[in-house]
């Protein structure tokens, strides 16, 4: 038989409305199951509810024996209409949506969105705010990579690194919570600044965390990096060349594992990243193992950046002194008529962005994260578009798994570090 479709046993009744189902004809799977006995191809459906798909990704794999001859990804099972909702929210109200988009690195999304809107409005944030955002973005890069590391270890068959990684993640949760009051959905930024200044001693907590982290990283690395099972399952698996990777639009660690040193922090620096001392790790072979090594090294480099950023954290105001975007202080509000008016307008109408647009990219934990905002002068975006790094990275998965084994699909999928909330938006 050429195609074997697995009929699940749930019966379906005509009252459910078959009228808008695809017309009978070439679509019916039963037609495809007609035997022609020439080949032994089998369809395997992975997901959307599967523990190794890291969300609700669905892959349909056509197998010849155990070799994948074709892989068809189906996405959209978590399409939450973020971009449409953004058009019905004021500029600041979009921020809570951004952290629900990538719940593995919420602060990077908060910051990237605020930076795009500020760039469009021509608002220059204060030095303290800049460095705070650098700290937050690097902290969440670690946060995201740690979750990736844990789930990656589970996919390769090791459970202990998951527990180690989550123990460290709990510390970042606590830091998130100390600053923003929420563990994941931080909503920390505002247009023109942050939701508040950092609480007393927060930077000390960050420093304590990054001092302790390398030890755990060493432990995890000693469990995985030279582990024969891990090496056997990842080296030479899911190989992609540098040219193909650029052509497919891969970015972030997935691109750097192929040897292309493209990092937005270095190539198009924002927030004075050019003044920080850090290396961009690149791989050599472009396989799963290289992606693993690149991410491990990125965690260490983020620690380096965090040390430098904490050293240069200046005193001073956190929010920009601009009544268009930031509420006046309570004292001003009570004593100054002008501040009262600004306060009223900001609360009633929200921030108003001048007509214009901006496409602003930062280096997210998954790759190049672009925020495209378009304003028509109103208090709501005309268009809020996210350039989703994992969406573009995931598009390369057929190329990576076809010709490989079925078991390698899980590793390749894990090595891409996808987050479905941002793929489907």
């Amino acid at each position: 038989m050429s195609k074997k479709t697995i009929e699940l046993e749930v019966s379906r009744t005509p009252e459910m409305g078959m009228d808008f189902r695809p017309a009978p004809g070439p679509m019916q799977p039963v037609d495809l199951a007609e035997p022609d006995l020439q080949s032994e191809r089998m369809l395997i459906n992975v997901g959307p509810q599967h523990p190794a798909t890291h969300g609700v990704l669905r892959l349909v794999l056509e197998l010849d024996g155990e070799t994948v001859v074709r892989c068809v990804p189906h996405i959209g099972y978590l399409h939450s209409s973020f971009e449409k909702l953004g058009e019905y929210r004021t500029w600041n109200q979009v921020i809570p949506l951004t952290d629900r988009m990538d719940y593995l690195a919420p602060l990077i999304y908060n910051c990237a969105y605020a930076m795009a809107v500020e760039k469009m409005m021509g608002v220059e944030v204060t030095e303290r705010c800049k460095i705070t955002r650098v700290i937050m973005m690097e902290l969440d890069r670690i946060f995201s990579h740690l979750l990736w590391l844990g789930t990656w270890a589970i996919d390769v068959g090791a459970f202990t690194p998951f527990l180690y990684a989550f123990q460290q993640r709990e510390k970042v949760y606590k830091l998130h919570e100390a600053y923003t009051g929420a563990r994941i959905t931080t909503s920390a930024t505002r247009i023109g600044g942050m939701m508040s200044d950092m609480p007393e001693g927060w930077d000390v907590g960050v420093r304590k965390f990054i001092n302790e982290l390398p030890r755990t990283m060493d432990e995890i690395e000693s469990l995985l990096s030279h582990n024969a099972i891990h090496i056997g399952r990842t080296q030479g698996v899911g190989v992609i060349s540098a040219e193909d990777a650029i052509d497919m639009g891969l970015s972030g660690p997935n691109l750097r594992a192929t040897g292309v040193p493209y990092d937005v922090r270095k190539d198009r620096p924002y927030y004075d990243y050019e003044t920080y001392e850090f290396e961009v790790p690149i791989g050599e072979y472009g396989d799963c193992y290289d992606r693993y090594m690149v991410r491990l090294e990125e965690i260490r480099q983020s620690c380096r950046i965090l040390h430098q950023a904490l050293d240069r954290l200046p005193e001073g105001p956190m929010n920009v002194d601009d009544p268009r975007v930031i509420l006046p202080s309570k004292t001003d509000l009570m004593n100054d008529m002008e501040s009262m008016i600004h306060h009223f307008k900001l609360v009633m109408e929200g921030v108003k962005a001048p007509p214009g647009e901006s496409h602003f990219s930062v280096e997210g934990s998954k790759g190049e994260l672009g925020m495209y905002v378009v304003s028509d002068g109103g208090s709501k975006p005309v268009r809020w578009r996210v350039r989703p790094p994992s969406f573009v990275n995931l598009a390369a998965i057929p190329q990576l798994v076809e010709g490989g084994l079925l078991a390698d699909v899980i590793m390749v999928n894990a090595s891409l570090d996808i987050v479905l909330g941002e793929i489907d938006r």
Partner: protein
Amino acid sequence: MSMEGGSGYKDVPGPAEETGALVSMPSGLERAHATVPVLKERFEDAFLRHEVVAGDEHVVFVARDRLYEVLQWLKTDPDHAYNFLSDVTAVDYGGGRPIQMVYQLYSIPHRRVLRVKAEVPLSDLEVDSVVPLWSAANWLEREVYDMFGVRFRNHPDLRRILMPEVYAEGHPLRKDFPLRGRFSRAEQTRRALAQAPEDYYIPSDFGPGRDFQVVGWQEVGGEPVPVKEGSAQERKASPPPASGSPPDPTRS
């Protein structure tokens, strides 16, 4: 805001100009872009206009029919070599105005960014696919098709990507699409549960005649939203609201 040619935003007295003192634009506003003059010279008739937005972002509008040609040149010319397609998206400004296709390009060797735009009228939503140039465009164009209904000529596998294949309510990111969809919630739930995910194992197998026979929301029951023909023209005729006027109740 605009350097040359007529920007759509040019005549609008926005808050930026009224409170100009508060805007701190980065210096180097008119910094030239290494590609734009060459592009203008080479594609004189296809090059419509050039804008600089948000301080340093260069936007080039090109004619829709020659979009592929321009992008091909931008990718292959060794002096420019925009080999990294960062983003393909579209913007619908509503009110019957054309949909803007947005191509965000990046040149890894030259570290250069360029945004190319093309306007596509609503009556003929079709452009050339750029998948032959960058494979990255495959899913991005499918998303634009799904969300805006723009069709891409020569796309290898143009079908919905985020919404279900049988989605009948239209293209969600168009401005005339209501936020909560066109059907009632009960109807949406009924339709959702009537889907059978295993019908779509490998849709491209079903050949070029793969037509899902999606009955549009206009034909079936449900509660189609009346399309407000008048409102767009009325709004267009009225002057844009000055920022001092009382806020539009629907905006706040």
